[in-house]
């Protein structure tokens, strides 16, 4: 059976594979991190490509602890001069919107053009806009 997890919803036993999904598969986000299985936990990696820019999500990797996650990120994601700073966060600590909610979350914004500043006509006297 395929188990589907969203960010922030990864239960403690994820990764051991093949077991029945736990009851609280959708609510395991805030249990303390504990590496119980033989697999290392998953980490999300954010890299700043140069000073002044934002950290961007690069991908994810496995590591036993935060220190190792940063070193792994250095080796996996910055080998070709991609970064000057790295953030890592354990994937289970991220909470994500549910794709099934897309219709109610995002579609209503579709026809509300007045939310864009360009919808409004500005008086000619206004400059520097």
């Amino acid at each position: 059976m395929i188990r589907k997890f969203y960010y922030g919803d990864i239960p403690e036993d994820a990764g051991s594979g093949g077991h029945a999904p736990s009851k609280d598969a959708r609510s395991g986000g805030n249990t303390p991190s504990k590496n119980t299985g033989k697999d290392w936990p998953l980490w999300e990696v954010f890299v700043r490509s140069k000073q002044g820019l934002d950290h961007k999500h690069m991908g994810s990797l496995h590591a036993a602890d935060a220190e190792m996650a940063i070193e792994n990120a250095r080796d996996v994601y910055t080998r070709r001069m991609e970064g000057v700073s790295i953030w890592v966060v354990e994937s289970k600590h991220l909470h994500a919107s549910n794709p099934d909610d897309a219709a109610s979350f995002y579609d209503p914004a579709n026809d509300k053009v007045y939310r864009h500043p360009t919808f409004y006509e500005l008086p000619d006297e206004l400059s520097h806009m």
Partner: protein
Amino acid sequence: MKEHLFKYTLHLADNALILGHRNSEWCGHGPALEQDIAITNISLDLIGQARNFFQYAAALYGNRATEDSLAYLRDARDFTNCLLTEQQNGDWGKTILRQFFMSNYQSLLYDQLQQSKDEQLAAISAKALKEVTYHLKWSNEWVIRLGDGTDESHARMLKALNDLWPYNGELFIPAPYEVQAFEEGIAPDVKTLKNNWLNKVATIFEEAKLPVPKEGFSQTGGKTGLHTEYLGYILADMQYLQRTYPNNTW
């Protein structure tokens, strides 16, 4: 040509090449994808350092020598790498420990070599030192993680320590070309690096709950071309293609 400068440069190149090659044997076999990439990165760093030293050595030697002819067409007796670098990978713990000993040594050596009277060696060392600083940080953490890890990892580290410790002494026993290089201000006196090295190792070992063994007997010979049984196999693997298809390129 200054023969001892050539020999000394070749010795630095051989250390980096053989350790790099040993680590590269992990490529595709690392305990986890991320660590596979890490150890392969370190291999590439070391082989890059070897190339810099080989290119310089080839220029010193002249006579149409190239970095490739020095790496691929010399026999085991002509290689002057320290015995430690050619020791078998064993398990992950042993590979880590070998890297830890060598990175500690290289970081002290390259740091001093930056002040070498030979500008080329100083420049190569300055560049290599940045890489080695990361190798050291990486292997420090792994030694602590494994030494102070599970009973199993601790026992494996003890075994690795037992296997590798006799090869550390050679690092600090200078070969004739090292003595000459020191006398001319080209290289540091390796004997003086020893205490610093021991202190650094002891600091990490304390955190890793590993004992610092007594000094004991040192295996020597690598620096003058007398190697353990393993180097021949490494060279057979590494040089096979050039020996079988001379001058082949790809």
